[in-house]
Structures are given as C-alpha cells and as structure tokens.
C-alpha cells in the first residue's frame, strides 16, 4: 500500500494506492479464479476514524483513493486498513508531511 498524506492548512490530503486485483465475478469467471475485491476501507488519524467507505467489485484494479480530513498535523500518523471479500485485511501507515 502506498500512502501519501500532506498537511494543507487546517486539513490533510491523503492519497492511497492499494495493491489488490479487484477481481469482479465476471472477470474471475473468465480467469477461472474466485472473485475477490476490497469491500471496506477505513483511515484513522491518531486513532480517530477520518475516512470510511464500503466498496464493490467495480473499483479499478489496485484501487486509488483521494480524500481529505479536518485537522492532522505534520508528523502525525495516518493509518489505512482494507478488508477484502475473503476477509483478508491489510494496514498501511504514513506520516503526515
């Protein structure tokens, strides 16, 4: 997972690229694999949830997301966690610049 978090005055801008094939049911059938995709993503800043999305098979492969949240200081941590359809979960962290 690649995370870039940048303080912009009273808010923080976060860009994240998650590594995941995001195989839809149709794509999986073609490839004779099981469908699997990220279904839920949250981001926290020093423990507080600042971003939350439930997602489907129609996000592009290796999903990219950009969002903003109020507050966040340089040096603080942004922690992003995803869960996929099979229950696999991954967490990435970055310091706010």
């Amino acid at each position, binding site marked *: 997972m690649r995370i870039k978090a940048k303080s912009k005055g009273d808010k923080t801008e976060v860009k994240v690229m998650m590594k995941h094939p*995001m195989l*839809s049911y149709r794509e999986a059938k073609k490839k004779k694999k099981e469908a699997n995709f990220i279904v*839920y993503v*949250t981001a926290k*800043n020093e423990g507080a949830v600042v971003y939350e999305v439930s997602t489907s098979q129609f996000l592009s492969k290796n*999903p990219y997301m950009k969002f903003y949240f109020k507050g966040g200081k340089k040096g603080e941590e942004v922690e992003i966690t995803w869960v996929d359809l099979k229950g696999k979960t991954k967490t990435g962290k970055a310091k706010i610049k």
Partner: protein
Amino acid sequence: MQRRKFLGLGAGIFATVVAAPSMLSAENYRKKLPKAWKVKNDEKSKGEDMAGVNGAIKAVFGSDKTEDGKVKLKAPDIAENGAVVPLTFEADGAKKIALFQSADPESLVAIFDVPARGIPNYSVRIKMQQTGHVVVVAEIDGKLYKAEKKVKVTVGGCGG
C-alpha cells in the same frame, strides 16, 4: 497507539473499552445492506436504463426521491479505458454519499460514511464495461441530492 495506551495504563480492560466505540462508529455496508449490492442494471439497455440505479439508491437510502444540486461530480465525457474511469465528487455537509453507475452488471459502487472529521470530497477510479451514467447521491440535512453524468466508454473494462 493501543499498545502504548495498554502499557501506559497497565489495564487490558481499559484498552478494550476504548477500542469498542471506534468500532461501533464504523459502518460496513457490505454487512449492513447485503441486498443493496445485488441490485442489477439492465445491461442490454447499453447504460441507458436507470431502473437499477434507482433501485440501488432506494436500497441504500430508503428512498429514491432526490433533488438536483449541492453535489458536484467530475467525470470524463469520454473514457478511453473503461478499466480506469477517474471520478471526483463533493457534497458540502453530507453525512453519507453513495456512488452508482448504469454500465456494469450491478449498480452500486461505493458508500461513504462521513466521520466527524471527514470532508465529503472524494476521488476514486472505477471500472465501466460500457457507456453508462455515473450517479452520486448525498444525504444532506436528511434530504437526498443527486448529480449524474454520462460517460462514454470506448473500450470496456469489466471483463465484458
């Protein structure tokens, strides 16, 4: 963070109590609204039939009565690659935002809950297997607002 708290206070019970509320504030709509993700588009309509999208809006928000305005949606007029269609949407004051399209087998793409410190301005990239309409619905002060844009897809991107 939790580990630090745990060690600092030396009380495991406290750590679990602290963790619980932050879990409760989270809404995994995959689990909460399993049916909403299964509302199908009429793929033969070539992205023109909006019944699937409207059905999915109702499944997510409990109503499909929407007003125009308050939601800004940026999407390309033409997507040369349907596997990666960049979208940006913004709705000041929204508590919940959901993203739909009429091009793929099912309508619903994502549901955003806007936390206390969240800013309802999001960018994502989606797959569209054919030309269709992208729809963003935002709940603001208990009302639903909608923005819609047609995206022409020249090469489909959903294995279709």
